């Protein structure tokens, strides 16, 4: 059916993962870091889906990707709740400035 080789999917996913890592490192904002994490999770899902093309009977890669999406949702909700608490305490969500544990 498909004429696109598997390695092309993998290279696209590798590029997305690397860019997501760069976003997570360079953004000095907790929500910017979350954006990078979402990109990385999507790259991993793309890998799983691309490999699951060769498993047409029980598409285990797609099932795993479905669970990855669920866990990504959970991660974002809890992370945003924590970010809101941090903001109300420190008045900033720059991860470099949130450095003291004491009130």
């Amino acid at each position, binding site marked *: 059916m498909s004429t696109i080789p598997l390695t092309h999917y993998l290279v696209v996913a590798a590029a997305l993962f690397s860019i997501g890592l760069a976003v997570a490192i360079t953004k000095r904002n907790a929500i910017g870091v979350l954006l990078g994490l979402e990109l990385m999770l999507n790259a991993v899902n793309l890998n799983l889906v691309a490999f699951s093309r060769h498993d*047409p009977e029980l598409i285990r890669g797609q099932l795993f990707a*479905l669970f990855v999406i669920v866990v990504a*949702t959970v991660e974002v909700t809890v992370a945003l709740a924590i970010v809101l608490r941090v903001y109300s305490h420190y008045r900033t969500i720059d991860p470099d400035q949130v450095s003291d544990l004491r009130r």
Partner: protein
Amino acid sequence: MEQVAFYGFSALAIGSALFILLTRNLMYAAFGLFLALLGVAALYVLAGADFLAITQLLVYVGGILVLLIFGIMLTRPAGERPDASQPNRVVVVNDRRFWGLLLSVLLFCLFSFTILAGNFALVGDTLISRSTIRTLGVELMTSHLLPFEIAGVLLLVALVGAAYLAVNRNPSA
């Protein structure tokens, strides 16, 4: 035709990911994430994962992205006066540029080398063009029932935990 679509949507996803990396306005970064997620969903369709593409659009674009934009709006930097008549400009400093870019470029080179050097022995046919919903449903309800239930419990725990965490219990602080 399929190749044009594949490379077009790949370029869309990677280009908007680069836009997220380079822009300083966090609102624009969120919209760039929208385009990147759209491109990835189209790549899912091209890889034969129709249900996963729809799930991606529903969950990420409909849920996570709206949540992230709410988070951006609610956590404006102190000292910045929001002006209701102006477009949203949430400027974020990009720091550690050198190390971030160096690390990611090195990682991409490593990945590309591994992928291109690796010779994947792929047995089995490629996915024929039919809907995957039936297979996914049967598998979720038979052999993957325990992870399915655990995912449900995890979602409930996250719902309760996020509601508990987000409440400000010390209004004077």
